[in-house]
């Protein structure tokens, strides 16, 4: 069990601390409760709050601040040590074509590797701390234990790694001291507080409220995390690569030896092209389904067809991806490709991946999005408007076309925008179905690539977080985030405005 916590929180010290603090807090619960009962003369009617509240007060006071400090420490320590060690790496240790960040990741890996071999008993702690890069082949020693290093270890890197290790262990030591001190202090204070007059319930409820607020703010933290993590790496990217080329260039040709053309335009074109085809499939089918279900269908048809259509929304996107790659793609090749053997006898399409393949399948995926959102919106149009139109002698379809749809139009536009944002951010269908060639072309039977596919391909496999070829993924991610966020905000605004109109 303690092994679990080790890995969970990084380092045995932290794992042990969590167990100790939780144990202390449980002890606090029982001790505080019995102390409060004792001070009330054993009769709970003499207490201000129910006895358990005294216990909870002690338990929360002991655990929450100590664990909070622990978490903050664990988050801050790597950053502090990184920046300290970062400065000590001499310029001479940075090889040609490498960068400080790259050396730093070597240092980290070496330090972790040394910890591993000490832990497994390959080397004792003392000799690990006094290694000499010139006399020991560390790379081979570490490789034997499954830790792969990028290059042979040089003395400055080893020095930095040793510094990293000492600082880490000092950090762990002080963390243990601080956290146990806080927990013990809180434990003693909370026990002293547990007397009959203490307003335990009020304090506990305030504490719980604070925890509830903390949980609610995790949503904000996530957004901040998304924006900051992508922003920092994007800034790094724009230091290495000109932003004019990224936004206005016309070719995408990453080259891992450097000097790449990294322009978003061909990717943006592929993304938009596929999304447009998807919407051309999804909007007519989805909209007509919604109209039929809300205006014509009886309750029986409605209760059968609606959930069935919504199954399409519940199917994971990897399934659609496979469907595109292995079923729709080859079927399209049969129609538009293979020359004489094909259905049309033409040779327009060579591979299964194409804009049309991905677009069609994504369209199928989006049908339920469009239909269920439009369905809600059409249902929100007041019945009086339909009755008025029918009363004047219009047929059902005329009422729908000339009264219901115009009234629902803003909401439907909102629904379509939401579907478009889905299409732009969709990954698995385009990774498997769209292809990997970045180009700006109007032929829907050609393979093209999208923003999301390039994010996947730049961030999987061998990544080097100091090269523009990897960092560009963050700039792409940020663009994608801004694009979808913009669409969502506009769509939600339109839908909300629309709802207010008829409420």
């Amino acid at each position, binding site marked *: 069990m303690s*092994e*679990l916590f080790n*890995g*969970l929180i*990084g380092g045995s010290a932290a794992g042990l601390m969590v167990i100790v603090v939780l144990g202390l807090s449980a002890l606090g619960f029982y001790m505080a409760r019995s102390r409060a009962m004792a001070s009330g003369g054993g009769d709970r009617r003499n207490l201000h709050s129910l006895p358990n509240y005294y216990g909870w007060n002690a338990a929360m006071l002991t655990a929450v601040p100590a664990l909070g400090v622990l978490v903050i420490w664990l988050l801050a320590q*790597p950053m502090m040590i990184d920046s300290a060690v970062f400065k000590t790496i001499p310029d001479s240790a940075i090889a040609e074509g490498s960068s400080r960040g790259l050396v730093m990741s070597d240092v*980290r890996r070496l330090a972790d590797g040394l910890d591993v071999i000490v832990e497994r008993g390959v080397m004792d702690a003392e000799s690990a701390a006094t290694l000499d890069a010139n006399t020991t082949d560390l790379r081979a020693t570490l490789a034997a234990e499954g830790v792969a290093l990028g290059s042979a270890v040089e003395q400055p890197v080893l020095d930095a790694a040793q510094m990293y290790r000492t600082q880490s262990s000092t950090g762990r030591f002080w963390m243990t001291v601080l956290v146990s001190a806080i927990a013990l202090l809180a434990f003693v204070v909370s026990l002293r507080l547990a007397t009959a007059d203490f307003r335990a*319930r009020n304090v506990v409820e305030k504490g719980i*409220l604070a925890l*509830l*607020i903390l*949980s609610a703010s*995790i*949503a*904000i933290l996530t*957004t901040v995390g998304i924006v900051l*993590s992508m922003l920092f790496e994007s800034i790094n990217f724009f230091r290495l690569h000109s932003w004019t080329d990224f936004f206005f260039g016309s070719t995408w040709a990453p080259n891992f030896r450097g000097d790449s053309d990294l322009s978003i335009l061909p990717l943006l074109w592929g993304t938009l092209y596929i999304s447009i085809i998807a919407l051309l499939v999804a909007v007519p*089918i*989805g909209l*007509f*389904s919604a109209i*039929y*279900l809300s205006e014509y269908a009886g309750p029986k048809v409605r209760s059968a067809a609606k959930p*069935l*259509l919504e*199954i*399409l929304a519940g*199917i994971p*996107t*990897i*399934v659609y*991806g*496979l*469907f595109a790659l*292995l079923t729709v793609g080859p079927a399209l090749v049969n129609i538009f490709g293979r020359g004489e053997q094909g259905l049309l006898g033409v040779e327009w399409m060579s591979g299964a991946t194409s804009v049309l393949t991905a677009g069609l399948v994504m369209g199928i995926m989006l*049908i*339920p999005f469009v*239909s269920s959102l439009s369905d809600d919106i059409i249902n929100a149009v007041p019945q009086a408007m339909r009755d008025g139109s029918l009363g004047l002698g219009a*047929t*059902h*379809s005329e009422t729908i*076309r000339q009264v219901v749809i115009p009234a629902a139009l803003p909401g439907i536009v909102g629904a379509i925008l939401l579907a478009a*944002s889905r299409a*732009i*951010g*969709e990954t698995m269908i385009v*990774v*498997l179905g769209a292809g990997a060639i970045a180009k700006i072309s109007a032929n829907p039977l050609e393979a093209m690539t999208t923003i*999301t596919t390039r*994010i*996947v391909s730049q*961030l*999987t496999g061998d990544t080097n977080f100091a090269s523009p070829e990897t960092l560009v993924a*963050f700039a792409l*991610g940020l663009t*994608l*985030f801004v694009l*979808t*966020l913009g669409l*969502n905000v506009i769509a939600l605004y339109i839908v909300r405005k629309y709802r207010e109109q008829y409420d």
Partner: protein
Amino acid sequence: MTDMTSDTPHVHGTLLQADARTRKRNAAETRFKFYGILAIAVGLLMLVILLFNIVSRGTGAFTQTFVTLDVALVEDKLDKSGNRNIEEMKKVSTFGYAPLLKAAMTDMVEKTGMEGQISAADMAGILSKGAPAQLRDYVLANPDKVGQQVSFNFLASSRVDGYMKGRVSRESIANDKSISAEQLDFVDKLIEQGILKKKFNLSFITGADASDARPEAAGMGVAMLGSFFMMLVVLVLALPIGVAASIYLEEFAPKNWITDIIEVNISNLAAVPSIVFGILGLAVFINYMHLPTSAPLVGGLVLTLMTLPTIIISTRASLKAVPPSIRDAALGVGASKMQSVFHHVLPLAAPGILTGTIIGLAQALGETAPLLLIGMVGFIASNPPDGIASGLLAPNSAMPAQIYEWAKRADPAFYERAWGGIIILLVFLLAMNTIAVILRRRFERRW
């Protein structure tokens, strides 16, 4: 109006006989209705095609071709010293076991009196490349069987399996180095003898992934465990945090701009593309916090952040559905606001919360894109984790990531596995959604 003043009076239809204009309008009506039916029919047709496609191409993965063979475990090849010392027997590598298979094949051919001559190596070539390893594992586990003749069920190679399932034909293997037409003739004879058979393949469901060369041995089991541990993390983190956040927003939050920001934030987070959460996970959990790559723990954390908005939205809806009279009654008998929420409102909202959580989990289970970025693809998840700690921290795959991995491999034999994996994944999703629906039907109260 013009009709009235014109010289020739307009001929109106009667109730019994529609005029041209009415007929036109009625035709338009019928057409419009037909478009609606057509749209729904197309949507449902797509669903049927998709499901049919999955079932027809995936069920093959659950059966596999096996060859039943009696192998003589020759003592002087496997245990020269004859003292059954495991350490010494381990020195015989899998290469040392290959000749036994060839010998077994030759024996079998002699016994059954088959005609047609192919070499012993070619005969053994119809077996999976993993067959010698299977033999070795058995011998090392049962050293006392050395010297006896034991009957084994070996997996046939993926080409033979494909031949049995109609994926491989004599024409398609013209340029194939791993199997020849003569070998297929031999396979035909083995089928006649009942030695080579298609059977249910449990190891597809329970087994581990296998390397590119052995599609016939690849299984989903280890990836399933990876998914299981990820869902564990999601459940443990997303449920309490999501419920706490919803309680605050629904019951305690004052109406001010901070609350507004949080609410707008949550509804926007629900629409952020999943790959962005993958980028967040890579940047924060792996690059910054140095959590291990490919670990289900990291996958679980990323999916937690992704599922939180779903859980919060559904929890808030079910909290809202509890009528205010319940709260008023609790407050009226002297409960504090906190007590009224935790003792009365929350238990009543629990079925709705649970339903929302299960649906959120089902969404997380099928999500692939963020997992690609935190490295849960591109390697062979070969060993099942041996405990909770390694389950969370050792590199593993997940069901959708495993399907993606198979879809990317060049050998079509893996495509069948990918479709089969999809069937397993969909069965899980179906089960979760059914549970959610039952929970809702059974426990949801309407006031």
